[in-house]
């Protein structure tokens, strides 16, 4: 029997799921673009990014172009965790149809 216990708790939260989804669409996302796309406050976004970073799913890059910029990207582990998460969701949907 499939259930939500199989889902990764670090990802299975609406805000963090949004962050992981966006990070999966591009190589890297600047902090400000993530914030604008998700409509989150600085503090909220930083908190969720820290949790994902501590779980080893998100890498942080700091660089100075015309101004300091922090970018976030998925690590190989994060990409696999996101793919596994999608697989479990798919299995739950399929099992529910039977």
């Amino acid at each position, binding site marked *: 029997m*499939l259930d939500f216990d199989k889902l990764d708790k670090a990802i*299975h939260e609406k805000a963090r*799921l949004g962050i992981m989804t966006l990070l999966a669409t591009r190589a890297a996302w600047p902090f*400000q*673009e993530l914030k604008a*796309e998700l409509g989150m406050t600085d503090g909220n976004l930083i908190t969720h990014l820290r949790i994902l970073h501590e779980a080893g799913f998100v890498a942080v890059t700091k660089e100075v172009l015309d101004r300091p910029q922090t970018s976030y990207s998925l690590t190989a582990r994060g990409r696999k965790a996101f793919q596994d998460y999608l697989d479990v969701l798919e299995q739950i*949907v399929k099992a*529910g149809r039977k």
Partner: protein
Amino acid sequence: MDERTHAEEHLRIIRSLMERATIYRAISAPTALVGSVLSLLTATLLFVANGRGSTSFFKLSHPGAARQFIVIWLVVLLLTLLANTLFIWRKARHESSAFMTAGLRLAIYSAAPVLIIAALLTSLFWRNDETTEALPILVTVWITCYGLALLATANFAPRSLRFLGWAFLLTGAACLVLTGPIFNTEPARHSAIAMGLTFGFFHLVYGLSTWPRQAKAA
């Protein structure tokens, strides 16, 4: 909410976020409206100025007509690009994001090849110092290449922009057929009509129809 419904809801969130993140609107509604107003005014001016017996400053004189025509529309293009830069800069400032986003970069890279070809073809008309008889062909090149440039962004563009691209491309194709039998009777005026219809009217429809959606998303 049962587990299946819950899972479906999460998949819906993922899908909608992925679609939003990978779609880029290369032409915003305000830019389209600025471009359309300028194009309609210019096209009307050229149409009136090139009537029989007109001595207007904007009447295209036979030798050098193509150069006059190119300069006039180049001014329209530059003013529209200037407005577009201002809109992008304001949006970037409002969102505290970078001016050159990944979406903008991708749109420029995708549209650049056909726009470079359009610029080279235009330079041929300039170099040969063509007369008014060449204007329908020049206009056809511009309309067709612009349509192709919009369609080059089709993989990540919203549906409205793809429609706009097809409208330009099909009108460009129609102009190719009409060049000769109809276009060449009054080439300067007919070229003005074609520019007004496409860069003016098409952009006006696109700008007005996408404005509410874009304002809601902002």
